[in-house]
C-alpha cells in the first residue's frame, strides 16, 4: 500500500478575476523510500498541491473543493488543525525554496531546532541541544555546537538550506516534501544539497516529493515523475521512461526547450509557442491544445483524462492525459 495516496485533489481560489482552479483532480501515490518528482512551470499548480495536502493553504481565498489525502489510514484533509499540526514536522516534513524567509531571523538556530523536538517529542531544551547539534553535523555543517548559537543571517544561503533540511529531518519523517529546495542556490551549492538529500534518503529511508521546474534536478533525483500543466497532471511515468519516451506533447516540448551542455550549440532551441493559459479562462478541451503542435479536433472536445498507456518497455505504469498519447508512444517505442 502506498505511503501517501492523493485522490482527486481539487483546489480553487476565488479571486476578483473569477474562480481559478489551481489544482484540478490531481491524484498520485508516493511509496516508502522513493522520490517522486513534480515538474511544471509557474502556475501549473505543483506548489498548491503540496500546500493543500499539508493543510497550509490559507482558506479563504483557497477552497479545497474535493479530494482525499490518505496517510497512515487517515484522510489528512479531514483532520482537525491540531491533529495536522502534530503530524507536520514529525511524520510529514517539508523544505521550502527560500531558506532566508523560512527561518526566523530573530531566533538562534538552537531555539528554532529545539522547538521541533519540544513540540513533537516533549524533550527539554537542554536535552534537545545535543540532538540538534548532531542533526547539524549530519547535514555537513562544520562546528555544529558553535553554529547553534548563531542567527540565520550569519550563515550563507547553502548553509541555511542545510539547516532547513536538518530541521525537517529532526523527527525522522516518513515523507519529506521539498518545494524547489535548490532553486535559490548556485549550481555548485545545489550539487552539494542534492547529494546531501540523496545520502540522507539512503540512510533514513525517507520518501521525498520533489517539486521543481528544473528538469535536470528531476532527472538526477527522481524515481518517478509527474508533469503538471494548468493544474492537472498531464503525464506520469518512471523517470527513465519519461525522459526517453515522453508521451505528452507538452512534456516533449519542455524537454526540447531545455538548453543542454551537449548537442549542437549553434542550432536554435525548440521552444513551445505561446504562453501558459490563464487559469481563470481556460480554453475548452485540453488546456495545452492552443500551443500543441499535434492538435486534432478531438483535443477540443473535452479535457483528456490521465490514462495508462501500453508501454512494453516501461518500468512502471506510464500515464498521459492526451488523446494522441498512445499513438505517439507507439511511434517512439522500439518495435
Amino acid at each position, binding site marked *: 500500500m502506498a505511503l501517501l495516496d492523493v485522490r482527486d485533489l481539487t483546489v480553487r481560489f476565488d479571486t476578483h478575476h473569477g474562480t481559478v482552479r489551481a489544482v484540478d483532480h490531481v491524484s498520485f501515490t508516493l511509496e516508502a523510500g522513493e522520490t517522486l518528482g513534480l515538474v511544471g512551470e509557474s502556475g501549473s499548480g505543483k506548489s498548491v498541491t503540496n500546500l493543500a495536502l499539508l493543510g497550509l493553504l490559507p482558506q479563504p481565498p483557497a477552497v479545497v473543493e474535493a479530494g482525499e489525502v490518505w496517510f497512515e489510514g487517515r484522510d489528512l484533509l479531514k483532520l482537525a488543525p491540531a491533529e495536522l499540526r502534530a503530524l507536520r514536522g514529525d511524520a510529514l516534513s517539508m523544505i521550502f525554496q527560500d531558506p532566508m524567509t523560512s527561518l526566523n531571523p530573530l531566533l538562534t538556530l538552537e531555539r528554532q531546532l529545539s522547538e521541533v523536538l519540544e513540540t513533537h517529542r516533549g524533550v527539554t531544551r537542554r536535552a534537545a541541544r545535543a540532538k540538534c547539534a548532531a542533526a547539524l553535523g549530519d547535514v555537513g555543517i562544520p562546528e555544529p555546537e558553535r553554529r547553534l548559537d548563531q542567527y540565520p543571517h550569519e550563515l550563507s544561503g547553502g548553509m541555511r538550506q542545510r539547516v532547513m533540511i536538518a530541521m525537517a529531518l529532526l523527527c525522522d519523517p516518513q515523507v519529506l516534501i521539498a518545494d524547489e529546495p535548490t532553486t535559490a542556490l548556485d549550481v555548485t551549492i545545489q550539487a552539494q544539497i542534492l547529494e546531501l538529500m540523496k545520502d540522507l534518503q539512503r540512510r533514513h529511508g525517507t520518501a521525498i516529493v520533489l517539486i521543481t521546474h528544473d528538469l535536470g534536478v528531476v532527472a538526477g533525483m527522481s524515481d518517478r515523475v509527474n508533469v503538471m500543466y494548468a493544474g492537472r497532471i498531464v503525464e506520469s511515468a518512471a523517470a527513465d521512461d519519461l*525522459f526517453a519516451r515522453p508521451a505528452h506533447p507538452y512534456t516533449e516540448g519542455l524537454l526540447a526547450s531545455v*538548453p543542454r551542455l551537449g548537442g549542437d550549440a549553434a542550432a536554435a532551441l525548440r521552444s513551445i509557442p505561446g504562453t*501558459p493559459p490563464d487559469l481563470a479562462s481556460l480554453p475548452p478541451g485540453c488546456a495545452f491544445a492552443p500551443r500543441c503542435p499535434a492538435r486534432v479536433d478531438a483535443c477540443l472536445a473535452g479535457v483528456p483524462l490521465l490514462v495508462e498507456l501500453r508501454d512494453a518497455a516501461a518500468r512502471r505504469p506510464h500515464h498521459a492525459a492526451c488523446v494522441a498519447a498512445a499513438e505517439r508512444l507507439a511511434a517512439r517505442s522500439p518495435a
Partner: protein
Amino acid sequence: MSLLEVRDLAKHFTVGARGFLGRGGAVLRAVDGVSFELERGRALGLVGESGCGKSTAARTIVGLHRATAGSVRLGGVELTGLSRREWQAHRGRLQMIFQDPYASLDPRQTVASILTEPLAIHRRGKPRERRLRALALLDAVGLNPRHINRYPHEFSGGQRQRIGIARALALEPEVLVCDEPVSALDVSIQAQIVNLLAELRERFQLAYLFIAHDLAVVRHVCEEVAVMYLGRIVERAPRDELFERPRHPYTQALLSAVPLPDPAAERARRRIVLEGDVPSPLHPPPGCAFEPRCPARARPGRPLRARRRRSSRARRGARGLPRRARSAPWGLRVNPERRATYARPRGASSRGLPHVRMRARSSPHLRES
C-alpha cells in the same frame, strides 16, 4: 581594434562604518581586474555564481557604476571617467537588458511611451516617426504592434522581456549587455527568448555581453565564454573549447554541477562536488581565491616544481595577453619565500595578494581573438 575593449576593470565598494575623512570602511572588491574584448556581431558569455562580480562588471561597463580603475573603450572611445553629459553621446551605442521583466519596466508607462522615451531623450525623429519606430520594434521582437497602447501588467513575463529587448534596440545599439535576460523565465519561454536574441543578433549585427549563471544557456548564445570567480576572470576560451576541455578546476566543477535532463547520464556522470562556499569578497583568501575549495590545489609539502611546469606551459600558450596578470595561475601555490619575486602592479592594493608578473593569465587556453 575591437568594438568593446575592457582592460583591468575594477569596481570596489566601501562598506561599513566610515570614520574621519571617509576612511575606515572595509573595501569590497566586487570586480578586481577584468579584461576582455568583444568584436562586432559576436557574443561573449560571462558566467559565474552569485557574488562573483559579473553583474557589477556589466553595470560598470554601461556606466551605471563608476569604475574604480581600468578602462572601457567602445569603438576606441574611452568611457570611464566621462561625465554624465559626455556619456549621453555614447549611451545609444551600448544598451542593456535586465533580468527581471517585472521590475525593469515602469508600470505606469504604456509600451508606446516605454519605446519612444529613449528616442525622445536622444532627440531622434519627430513624435510621429518615433511612434512608427516603436511599432517596427514591437514587430521585430515578435509582439503584436496593435498592443502598443497597453501597459506592462497586461503582458506575461516572456512578453515583458521582449518589451525590454525592444527598448534596448530603440537607439540601434552596437553592443547589448544582457544581464541574466532569461533566468526569471519558465523553460518553454526561455527558449523563445534565447532564439529571439540569436535572430536579432544576426539581423542587426549586434554584439552581446551575455551575463548568466546558467552554463547551458550561455552555450547556446555565445561563441566565447569567460568564467568569473570572486571578481576575476579565471578562464576564458572559445565555446567548444571551454565546454569540452575546461582547464580551470573551477570551470570543471561548475560544468560537472550542472544537472543534466537525462536520468541515465545523471547516474553515469562523476560529479565534482566542491566543498564549502564562495569566500567573502571582503576577506578574499590570499593567493588564488579558489584555492580553499580547489580539488587540484597544491598542498603544502608537495613539491612546487611540478606545478610550476604547468604555469610555464600556460605562459607559452598565451601570447598577446595583457602584460600584467593579476592572479596567480591556478594550482600555483605561491611559496611565501618566493613572494619577493612577484611584483605588485602599479596601483595595486596592500592586500598582500601575490600578483604574478607574467604573460599568462589564469587560463592557459585563453586566446587572442
